[in-house]
């Protein structure tokens, strides 16, 4: 909500116009500072919010840069600089780091455990935008340690939460309005995710789809600004390159797209398997005695380390491995094995409560599956356009869409992380198929599922999508109104009313101005036989608020209670009555819709 007046909090400096200028007595810096703060604080709050979005974006970008460096540095120190770590390191690093992470989470940063997306979402919907800064520090340390030691998790989810935490702290300290404090967390979340992915559009879409849970967010501008400024900041330090480099390709014939339909089906089924497993195992892991939490990350680390002895590719976030897969470095058999083992390893890490995100692993699994499907298809159909890398890229988006249930984000994510627009059509097709399969067999998306398992019921875009939006057209009745003009004779009007039962009479005063006349009023005038009466003489109620047939029924409901009936007019001609709608009609229409 915007406020037309200037922001005037207790600590604010009055507007510059009212302040006597005595800059000569002040230092140059102080004078400049005062002029600048005057300008900032005399902004309308929505503009000030945009300014804050940029600030949050830069801070989040810096935090993510440090976070990514911390992860890679930890990885180099713990696992060594080679892609194939030595045997003792590959087993000991994730195990010992698992113990350290468990102790940190239990005793120092209890809120670092769990999904950053859900914690940010619950901050928006449950705790008025409050995310303790301790969580930001906790996520930074524990995730850097966990991912750097080889746990199969990614840095995006924690980055999202770190951004949200920074934003929340700034919002609270600046004592923004309650609504703005609540909305500032998603702004930071978008900034954090954008910097982590180097993908501002995807971050904005994801935050709208998953964190805010509604497309009608009033903070879209701030979210976009924050995402852009964080990406710019991140690129200043880590470079502007896309995450993956895939040669451009062209789909020559529509029939070639069938190859991606197959990929969509495989990706959808794989995401289904992974989701089912997590949904089944997580409550069981949570029900284990509390003392086991001290060891769960270590056991997960040990299991991942054992897998890593033969296939170290499954360890960590796995971005270099995705890049290799995109360059066709693995056989289809190895790609399939890597996908399956990554599902296992990620499941171990996630179920053990080790802090970290699911984005990178889901991209890894998708890339491996996509590469495998592509290699198999190209074996049988060598003329198929694109390379294994193309399929790996599309596979990434496919699994992402099926697993996280964010089809729109996944399409843009693929374009942004590869800088390759040519994959858009295949990725749209396969993502939608994977999303459809996943949604058909698991009704609740992953993050909602996790929230519900934690006892939270948070809104989701997917639920909103499933809700039927009723319009006036669904409730209105046509041919249920009698349109009268001022000069019409009462007798004729009565005749028409008697000819058809249940007609409501409306007086057309002028285009856009309609009144309602009770039947009893017409009858009263008709009973007076001493003279001939016209409709104009009848007492009418109005002017009535009018509605259009495409307006939402909820909108019509605002007025329906105050008037016996609402005229439904044509948008092209306000003197034309298309139908009539009453409170009863609206309620009947609502009752017809099945409750989700």
């Amino acid at each position, binding site marked *: 909500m915007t*406020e037309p*007046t200037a*922001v*005037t*909090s*207790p*600590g*604010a*400096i009055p507007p510059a116009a009212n302040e006597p200028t005595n800059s000569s007595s002040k230092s140059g810096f102080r004078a400049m*500072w005062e002029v600048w*703060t005057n300008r*900032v*604080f005399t902004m309308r*709050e929505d503009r000030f919010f945009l300014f804050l979005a940029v*600030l949050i974006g*830069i*801070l989040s970008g*810096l*935090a993510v*840069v*440090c976070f990514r*460096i911390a992860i*890679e*540095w930890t990885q*180099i120190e713990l696992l060594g*600089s*080679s*892609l*194939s770590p030595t045997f003792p390191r590959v087993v000991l690093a994730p195990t010992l780091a698992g113990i350290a992470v468990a102790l940190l989470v239990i005793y120092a940063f209890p809120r670092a455990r769990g999904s950053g997306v859900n914690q940010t979402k619950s901050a928006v919907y449950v*705790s*008025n*935008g*409050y995310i303790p800064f301790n969580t930001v520090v906790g996520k930074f340390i524990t995730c850097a340690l966990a991912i750097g030691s080889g746990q199969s998790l990614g840095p995006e989810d924690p980055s999202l939460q770190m951004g949200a935490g920074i934003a929340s702290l*700034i*919002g*609270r*300290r*600046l*004592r*923004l*309005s*309650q609504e703005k*404090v609540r909305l500032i967390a998603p702004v930071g979340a978008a900034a954090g995710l954008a910097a982590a992915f180097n993908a501002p559009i995807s971050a904005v879409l994801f935050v709208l789809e998953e964190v805010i849970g509604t497309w009608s967010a009033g903070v879209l501008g701030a979210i976009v600004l924050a995402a852009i400024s964080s990406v710019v900041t991140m690129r200043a*330090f*880590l*470079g502007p*390159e896309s995450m993956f*480099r*895939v*040669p*451009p390709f062209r789909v020559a014939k529509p029939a070639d797209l069938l190859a991606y339909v197959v990929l969509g089906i495989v990706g959808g089924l794989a995401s289904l398997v992974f989701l089912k497993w997590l949904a089944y195992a997580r409550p069981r892991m949570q029900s284990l005695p509390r003392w086991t939490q001290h060891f769960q990350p270590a056991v997960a680390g040990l299991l991942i380390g054992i897998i890593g002895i033969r296939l170290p590719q499954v360890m960590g976030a796995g971005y*270099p491995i995705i*890049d*290799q897969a995109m*360059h*066709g*470095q693995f056989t289809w058999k190895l790609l399939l094995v890597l996908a399956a083992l990554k599902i296992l390893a990620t499941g171990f890490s996630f179920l053990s409560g080790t802090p970290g995100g699911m984005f990178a692993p889901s991209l890894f699994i998708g890339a491996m599956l996509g590469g495998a499907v592509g290699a198999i298809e190209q074996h049988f159909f060598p003329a198929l356009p694109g*390379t*294994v*890398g193309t399929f790996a890229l599309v596979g990434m988006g496919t699994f992402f869409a099926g697993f996280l249930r964010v089809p729109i984000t996944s399409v843009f994510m693929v374009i942004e992380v590869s800088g390759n627009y040519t994959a858009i059509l295949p990725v749209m097709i396969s993502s939608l198929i994977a999303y459809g399969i996943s949604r058909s067999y698991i009704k609740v998306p992953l993050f909602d599922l996790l929230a519900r398992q934690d006892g939270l019921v948070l809104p989701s875009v997917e639920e909103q999508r499933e809700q039927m939006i009723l319009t006036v057209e669904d409730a209105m009745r046509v041919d249920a109104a009698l349109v009268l003009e001022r000069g019409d004779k009462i007798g004729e009007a009565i005749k028409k009313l008697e000819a058809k039962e249940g007609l409501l009479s409306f007086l057309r005063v002028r285009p856009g101005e309609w009144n309602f006349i009770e039947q009893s009023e017409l009858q009263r005038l008709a009973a007076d036989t001493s003279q001939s009466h016209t409709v104009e003489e009848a007492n009418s109620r109005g002017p009535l608020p009018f509605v259009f047939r495409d307006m939402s029924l909820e909108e019509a409901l605002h007025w329906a209670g105050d008037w016996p009936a609402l005229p439904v007019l044509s948008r092209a001609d306000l003197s034309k009555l298309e139908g009539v709608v009453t409170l009863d009609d609206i309620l009947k229409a609502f009752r017809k819709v099945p409750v989700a």
Partner: protein
Amino acid sequence: MSSPANTIAVGKKSPRIYSREAVLFGCILLLVLFVLFTAAVSRMYHKKIHVLADNWFDQGEASFRAGDIKSALTDYRNAMVYSPDNAKFQFHLAQALAAAGRGDEGRSYLLNLLSESPGSGDVNLALARIAAHKGLTSDALRYYHGAIYGVWENNPIEMRWQVRRELAEYLLERGLQQQAVPEIIALADSTPADNIEQRRVVGNLLLRAKLWNRVLDVFRSLPAANQNDEDALLGAATSAFNLGQYNAALDYFDRLPEKDRNSPGAAEMYKTAQQINEMNPFLPGLSREAKARRAASALSLATVRVQQCASQLGQSLSATPPETQLQKALADAKELAADENWQNIARHPETVDEVMGHAFEMENAAVAACGEPEGVDQALWLLGRSRGVSAQ
């Protein structure tokens, strides 16, 4: 505007209240400090990963040079983890993959590099080699030409020459003579006159492409620079032989050491050239009698060849009027031979051309009916060809 109390999180201890400008000032200060800190950390990090990347790359280079392609691949990949966009690393990894017989995998990196620098000679050449290895001729041609006309950082003229030579060799190996010829001619034109080694290479390519005139031009000039250049002498002999310049061919063959002269490719040509030389009545300096004897001998040799060929085909040579080429050629020769022994020819030296013409015609008729001859018949037939009497 809601009161400050409302903005504080539910159920949390109220934080100490600061003025907005103080908070904002704190934020800006924090931002500046954070930028400085991040810059310092980032600098340290980049330094570290550059060192790691370079170390892995150097290890990869060492492994590659030592022929340990598997280790080189691992090392290059490790290097690329720390510097994924490094074109040099990608290029070397691609080359190692190609060397390991995994050209398809290398191709993907090279295509990336090509999309970034389409004019790169190195990248085009590497792609051309992969395409050539896979037998994708049109791709190979495209990339080879990309490399020839591409940008080379070091010694571009030499590199372009080498690439064109590689392309010409590839085309000749694939039997694509027509496509090879323009490349070899272009190569010959771009070869400096003073570069003996390159001219020898060009000469050999011309030889393989059977561009005899050009070969002879190249090789004739080479012995001038080095009298004992065996390759050049052999090349010149071969091209002279194929051009029908048997006398010159013999001269080059004679200048070759015996072992080269008797090598499998040369021995046959040398022997044939000698035979041609021995039966050629048109050589300058021959006596009238010698010319007549050679002409008569050629006529009788060709007559025998026609008779053998007719017998091989089961044809009668006594048919009148003559119908087949063999019958016609023999009839013409008999008509002449009735009164043309060597003494008559010696008496009328102007008939040598006519007699030899009949001999060549008979050989040609026999070639057309029975295929190419061997030995002295081949020598006679080749002599006829070199005199411009081609097989029908």
